[in-house]
């Protein structure tokens, strides 16, 4: 494990939004070629952590190293050079809704690759074929279903043949079959093209299908990082509760009964 090349390193990140502490000391290493899955409850800051990794949110303290470079020290050009090697699938798809599916995929290609228009067209067709949406080039995002938007988002994320792909809840809101298809796609990409993947999700099926290693985020910290086996045989009660989906346990969803009574009569 140790001799593997570290491609992303998150060091002791703290982040507050207003006066709510979202991340409080996150440490994480992602190795080249692996699929790292970050899991955690809704609203626990998974997307925020991902945003730190791609540099759209700056930490209050701590730093993110991308291939050994501190992202905070990069200027706009340096950051752009890094970003051309990223692909990101956003939680909501984030398709440009004034552009057709094809134009969505072309945006970055036209700007950064300076290819012939015919070649761009062929590349777009290939990426759409990968996500099973060939023939949908001319549609507008508003004409697509939620699952289709996600797939177009995925096609766009890999349009530039990135080295690292970030997925924010790739399978949330999809039917089980489509979720399976997306998971397989993520696997294929990472195995065949040796892409490094960082995925954020709370879909347990998906976690155990795609992850090489899993990190559990809870209350602003990483509770445990490990392989699938290590996580399945965890001794950490909170991680156990999460992967088994138990309503009761060390992570309390409901406040205690006395609290409730107090609140009610107050």
């Amino acid at each position: 494990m140790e001799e593997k090349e570290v491609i992303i390193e998150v060091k002791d990140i703290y982040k507050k939004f207003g006066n709510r502490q979202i991340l409080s000391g996150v440490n994480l290493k992602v190795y080249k070629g692996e699929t790292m899955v970050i899991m955690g409850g809704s609203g626990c800051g998974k997307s925020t952590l991902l945003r730190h990794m791609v540099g759209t949110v700056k930490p209050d303290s701590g730093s993110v190293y991308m291939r050994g470079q501190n992202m905070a020290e990069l200027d706009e050009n340096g950051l752009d050079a890094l970003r051309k090697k990223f692909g990101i699938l956003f939680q909501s798809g984030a398709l440009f809704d004034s552009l057709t599916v094809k134009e969505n995929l072309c945006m970055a290609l036209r700007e950064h690759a300076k290819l012939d228009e015919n070649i761009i067209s062929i590349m777009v067709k290939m990426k759409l074929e990968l996500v099973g949406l060939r023939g949908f080039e001319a549609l507008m995002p508003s004409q697509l279903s939620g699952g289709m938007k996600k797939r177009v988002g995925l096609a766009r994320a890999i349009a530039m043949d990135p080295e690292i792909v970030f997925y924010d809840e790739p399978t949330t809101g999809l039917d089980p079959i489509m979720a399976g298809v997306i998971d397989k796609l993520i696997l294929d990409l990472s195995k065949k093209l040796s892409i490094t993947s960082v995925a954020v999700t709370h879909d347990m099926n998906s976690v155990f299908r795609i992850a090489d290693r899993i990190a559990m985020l809870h209350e602003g910290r990483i509770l445990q990082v490990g392989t699938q086996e290590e996580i399945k045989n965890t001794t950490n009660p909170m991680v156990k509760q999460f992967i088994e989906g138990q309503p009761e346990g060390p992570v309390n969803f409901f406040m205690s009964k006395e609290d409730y009574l107090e609140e009610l009569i107050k």
Partner: protein
Amino acid sequence: MKKLLENIGGTVITTFRQIIDVSRLLVETVYWLFVGPFKKKPVKRDSIFEQMLFMGVKSLIIVVFVALFTGIVIAMQTAPQLASLGAVIYVAGLVAVSLTRELAPVLTGLVIAGRVGAAITAELGTMKVTEQVEALETMALNPVRFLVVPRFLALIIMLPCLTILADAVGIFGGYLIGVFNLNINSGLYIDTTFRFLTTKDVMTGVLKSFVFGAVIALIGCYQGLNTRGGAEGVGKATTTSIVTSFILIILSDCVLTAIFFFSDI
């Protein structure tokens, strides 16, 4: 009392920060407008034309409507006074000068702030809250270059054009009253109009509208790109955008008029 002072202090600080942020946006916009093309990062011509079409061509009817009736109203309002002085022919000059110097640029600016400025904020705000702006950024496509510059450029071109049109239509409105209601000879009316109207009148008005265009585009984009909090946030940002543009148009109109007035332009 302490709370009141704190509130006032807070508002002042926020306002100050916003002024700095908007100035920064202006600098960035100008950078992408003039320096970007030399670094092989030009702004797409298509998107500029698309914006010009939306802002200019599709605002024609409302601008013509407002200008025509403003011209008619000024003529009707001033005619009795001038008539009592026996100088009813001066309606022509009054309509022409007040429209070109003041009313056409300001009214057109306000109309466009309501129509185009609001649309800019709503569109960019929606893009912001649905992560589209972030998507652009992470694709190494600068949002200022791709979203702000086309709108800015289109508006500082189109608003002066619309203002010149409003000048013409407004003067025509005054002409209608002058000729058909006040029975001024048509040739004489036109003649008087041009006797009073100088290039300088038109140019100061156009210059104003140029500034208003920049204000509307910058405020619209700034509010849009700083939208927070879903659909409700977009609504709030849009309202703020219109109100701020209105205030700034009136303020900058006053400042510009004072400059023209004191420097004898």
